[in-house]
């Protein structure tokens, strides 16, 4: 398990061992959608967000 900083809020984001470049995950703190740019050392960037329908 490695860790990288969330580019949005700065919190540490845990990455599982076989994390792959291009994988999308959300920051557990700020919820931002993050893309894995590099695996070793891990690097994250905010993913281009799909405008989500949010109900009203």
């Amino acid at each position, binding site marked *: 398990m490695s860790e990288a900083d969330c580019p949005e809020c700065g919190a540490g984001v845990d990455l599982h061992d076989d994390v792959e470049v291009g994988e999308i995950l959300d920051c557990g703190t700020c919820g931002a959608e993050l893309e894995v740019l590099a695996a070793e050392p891990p690097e994250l960037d905010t993913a281009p967000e799909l405008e989500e329908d*949010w*109900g*009203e």
Partner: protein
Amino acid sequence: MSETYTASVIGGTGFTGGELLRLLAGHPNFEIEQATSRSKANKTVGYSHPNLRELDLRFSSPDDLESVDVLFAATPHGVSMEQIDEFDEVADTIVDLSADFRLNTAEQYEEWYDGHSAPEYLEESVYALPELTRDQLPGADLIASGGCNAASTILGLKPLFDADILSGDEQIVADVKVGSSEGGAGGGDASSHPERSGVVRPYAPTGHRHEAEIEQFLGVSLSFTVHAVDMTRGSSATCHVFPGEPVSKGDLWSAYRESYEDEPFVRLVAGGGGVYRYPEPKAVTGTNMAEVGFELDPGNKRLVAFSAIDNMMKGSAGQAIHGTNIALGLDETAGLDFQGLHPVGAP
């Protein structure tokens, strides 16, 4: 002798579409011609709207549109601007409930929406909040019914500008609380009953598009935040403002009365006794009435303006009928006389 106009509704299965059908069915001057639906063509109107089971009408496909005097479009943003030429062909008067013709210029649509595909209609369209635009409505061919949260906010603030209590340079915070019908009939995950019940959800924490309308009409920019709360109908705006000069309750009563005393659909509620002392959305449910009021906070040099409407009525279908009544020269209040209920729960 009263004239009768034929009317059709595009988007008849939707929430505002259903409300338009209800109002038209009870209106002395209208006869419903068609209500369209793509997904439920041929089904009875009662299939979607249980309160209209008595109405002897089936949805027709929007492709089979027939000529009418007045065409109401109750479709999602973007639909009317695409189809406005066709609408124009079949109807003398078009009343659009979406945001498609509310703003004055294509530039505004670039800024707040995704641009506009029929900007040539923007100039002729008339915004339908009669408390603002009554004079421009008679004879209008294209009526743009205003946004629900814009309506509640504008109605609360307008007297303060009319009476020069606000000059336009002051900080204005509008904190709005709304019901789930604002999301329309096609809600997603966030609108499901288990998720949506009991919320105080900042659904448009900043940057709500209705800001554009409010700014266009009040001539000021304002800080706008919308919360979803647990009701189905209602838009309640609390506007916190900070007048440069001290103002008294008497000044406020004068200002609000001045602006609204001849308005058939605005009622002042500010203080007094009993359980209902300020504007309350559930007190106007099902009606075209806006309740408007205020309170002073001298310690903070603040004034709070409250207003409450039913988003399905004064905030959309009722406002549209009101505007149309004026446009056609009918009695302003025709078809809009329901008084609301008490007690009523979370309507």
